[in-house]
Structure formats: C-alpha cells, structure tokens
C-alpha cells in the first residue's frame, strides 16, 4: 500500500485530472485513510478470484436491428457539444506536427 504524492500525481495523470499542491496534501492524507480502510478485505477469508467469480452472469445483447432514421437526434445532441463546426465535433489534433 503506497500513496505518496508521486503516486497520486501519477494516478491523476491517468485520470486526466490536474491536482494543485494544496489539493495534493489533503488528498495524500485522505488516501491514507481510505486505503487503510479498504485494505481490510485482504484479511477476509475466501474470495479467491478463480473460485468465486463464476456467478452465472452472462452478457445480454440485443438484436442489431430497427435502426432509427439517420440524423433524427443529430440536432439535439449537437446542441450540447461545446465546440463544433457544422455537424462535426471540433477537437484539437492529437498528433503533434512532424518537424
């Protein structure tokens, strides 16, 4: 169980969240408490992954049929898009310019 400031910054990076220095100090303390608490399951008897995950659950799929009329929801959905151009969502380019 580790939860140093570096680890928290790394998790924040994975979660696409920026953490300020003040936030980091209180998060470090909270993390210690929360991880300490949830770690008690390590002492719980039973619960081996192989034996106890066969619970009869199965995925439910619907038939891929009866599509709605194309464009029916486009206007309403685009209303909510923060940055758009015509009928497109506008995002910045992902790959940097090659030099």
């Amino acid at each position, binding site marked *: 169980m580790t*939860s140093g400031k570096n*680890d*928290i910054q790394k*998790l*924040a990076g*994975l*979660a*696409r*969240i*920026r*953490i300020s220095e003040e*936030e980091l100090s*209180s*998060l470090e303390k*909270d*993390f210690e*408490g*929360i*991880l300490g*608490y*949830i*770690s*008690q*399951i*390590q002492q*719980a*008897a*039973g*619960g*081996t*992954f192989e*034996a*106890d*995950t066969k*619970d009869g659950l199965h995925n*439910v*799929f*619907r038939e891929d049929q009866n599509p709605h009329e194309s464009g029916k*929801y486009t206007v*309403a*959905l685009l*209303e*909510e*898009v*923060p*940055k758009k151009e015509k009928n497109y*969502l506008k*995002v*910045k*380019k*992902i790959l940097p310019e090659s030099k």
Partner: protein
Amino acid sequence: MATIDTTSLTIAQAREHLIRGDFSSVELTEACRAVIEKKNPSINAYLEVFDDVLEKAKEADKQFKKGGEHPTLLGIPLAIKDNILIEGNIASCASKMLEHYRATYSATAIQKLKKAGALFLGRTNMDEFAMGASTEHSAYGVTKNPLDETRVPGGSSGGSAAAVAMGSALGALGSDTAGSIRQPASFCGLVGMKPTYGAVSRSGLIAMASSFDQIGPFAKTVSDSELLFHVIAGKDSLDSTSIEVKGQRSDVKGRTIGVPRAFLESVPGGIDADVYKNFNDALEALRGAGYTLHDIDIPHLVDVLPIYYIIMPAEVSSNLARFDGVRYGLHKEGASLLDDYELSRSEGFGPETKRRILVGTYVLSSGYYDAYYGKAIALKNVIRREVDAVFKKVSAIALPTAPTPAFKLGEKSDPVAMYLSDVFTAFANVAGIPAMSVPSGAVERDGVSLPVGFQVMAPHFHDDHLFAIGRDIESVCGK
C-alpha cells in the same frame, strides 16, 4: 378547499380529493410552490423549479373534468433528483461539469411517471454525481434538514428527501447506490425504497456505479411508495440489466425476520445507543404483531463496506471518463487536446468526485487490481451466496437504516467517517436485493426530535414483500 396541508397529505389521499374535486391539481401544485417559495431559500432542496408545472397541472385538471378512468398519478406533483433526465431540462448532477447540460431524452422512469399523469415540480439537490451521504458535496450549496436546519438531510438524494419532508412535494424520485434513498429517508422521517437491482430501468439515470445504482421512490407512507414503485418498475429494452419483477411476485409468505446480531454488536464505527434501542423496540413490536425473530450470521457482512468502497470508485472512474469536455458538459480551452481534457475535468469535478476517481484508478491499476478490485468482486459473490443461504431460513432481514440520526452540518469532514454512514445500507446494493427504510420513531438531540428509520430487506424480486412488512412496521411503530 381553502388550504391544503401538503406536509401531511399523501398521494393516495390527494388522488381521492382530486377525483372528488375537493381541490384541483392547479391548487395542489400552487400549494406546493408556495411551500417552495417560503422554505427553499433556507433549505435549498431544489436547484431549479420548473416553470411549466402549472401548465401541466391545468392539463391534468382538464382530464379530471372529462371523467372516466384516470391514470394512477394524474395531477400529482413530484420532485426529481438532479441526476434523472427529463428531456429539455437541465440535469446537472449538482456538478459544475453539467451546469448547463440539457437532457436530450427522458429517463424511462420519467416517461412512465409522465404516462401515469405525474407532474414534475423541479430538480433536487444532491451530492455531486451522487457521491456522498449528506448532500454537503453539492456544487450548489448544502441542503439542510427541514426538521432541524443545523443538520444534514442525508444523502446523496438529500434534496428529494427534504423536498418531501418540508411539504413541497407529495413524493420524489432518488437514486440509491449504497443507501442514497434509504439513509435520507431515515434522516427526514420518510419511507425510502431501493428496488431489486434491475427492477427499475437505469436508462436516463446518470451513471455513478452501474452495478449498484437503482432509481427508487421517496414517500410519506409505504402505500404511496408502493404506488410509485409500480409505476416506474418494469423491464426496458434500453437497460439490458432490467427485469420484470411483477411476474415474479412474492411467494414469500413467511413472517420470519433475520437479525445479524453479531454484526450489530460489533459494527465498525459503532451504533448510536438510542438508535439501537429504537431498532430493538421496533423488532419487539413486530414480534408482538406475530413475526418470528431469528439471529442470523452473514460471515462477510463486516467486509461489505470496504468491498463497496472498492467496486464503486472503480466503476466511478470508468463512468466519469466520459466527461472530457468534447461531447457535452464543461469545456475549458487549453493548448492541446490533453490540456482541454485535464482543465475541463479539474475545473468541472469537485473534491469528493476527484477523490473517488483517483481511488478507482488506483484499485484498477495493474499492480493493485488483484489485491483490490479482483478480491472485492470475488467477495461480492461470496456475500451473495451467504445471503441466498440466509433467505432459505428467513423471509426478511432487518437492520437499522443508519447508525445515527441526522448528523450536524460539517460534522463529518473525514471521508471514511462519512463512508461509515452507509454501513447498514451498502449491503442491499452489494447483494442486489430490495430494501426499504420505514420511520420507526424518533430520538431526541438538543431538544429536537429526530426521526429514525427501520430497514427491512427481502430476497431478489420480492419487492412486494417489503410493502407488506413495511405496512406492519407503520402500524406497530404508530405511524
């Protein structure tokens, strides 16, 4: 009818009055709006009051005038938690992330309520993205308990509970992931129900932890709660985990209640002595009414809360990854796409939401997955087997709803202390079984009488069994 007492009026009574023409839906709705105007500035139960509700009430009155059969909830004003979509209205989850987000469709539960003739007064305050047990984690200020304004209404559906408790709505919808309906119902003196997982469609409920989330009703009586439940329940093609519970109606006729006594005696975080006494008194009263009580043992009950606080944040971190400032919600402009993501999410989410996303990221990360998420999922299945075994011996399980009465605003600043408020309620979500909190009396704190809830749980699909026991609790606890 001169004045309508909305603090005591039930849905069933209101329906009779409306049919008889004692008052109109417009008059009833105006009475609710008058309460909101008077009390909401200090209670902060509503984030927004919808301006079309009186128009809808007029339409309901026209239908009443026509006569004939009226749908179950015609002209009945309800309050709706801010994470349940109503097409065209804002649904913000009490977050800055969705401050201006307008729902592009209605939740299935909302469509069913509309079809049944219900009216929507407004959207109610909550802990941001339903993460909390006090409604103090809202981005739009805390909601106060109408019975004692120095105390919390519970959470995360605290706004819905306060809306009904202050007499501004005849019923409300909330969502319950680990007690978010039952605990505020307990704190506000209401009946709160979490249906069997899948009994009510989750389509249009903004996801927090998908394998636990359920929509359910708040009401003043068990019968009102039953009425609301039967309107919103049902299988839905838009939620593949939904099931029809009506066809699986209760064959549990037994009147045996199991009490996990050993767990209660050593519950993590402890239980308030007066709350425990109230619980035991209610059990004795039920025994007097013909119920048999059994001590039961659910060996892993003590592990339920840590299991929940692993699986839930894992699902939170996945579900909330969709808020990236691209398709909807808050967008903050940065120098790169990564900047856009990080700035939007950092500014859009509040502290508790960020904390849970980070814990979820931790328990799912490759080095810790087996020790946390993997182990928790396996233990969840162990608990489900233990619960099935117990229900071979008893027809219901009883626990207090919460370990304390409503606590003071600001009292629980430590996250784990707040989490322990779910110690009796998370169990039903982890097991997937239906559960209900019914008022069982009150305890006195600082000269104020604070309500306490008695929680009863039934086997999967036996939601109807809860209403039968619930009515017995109401009668023996003097409601």
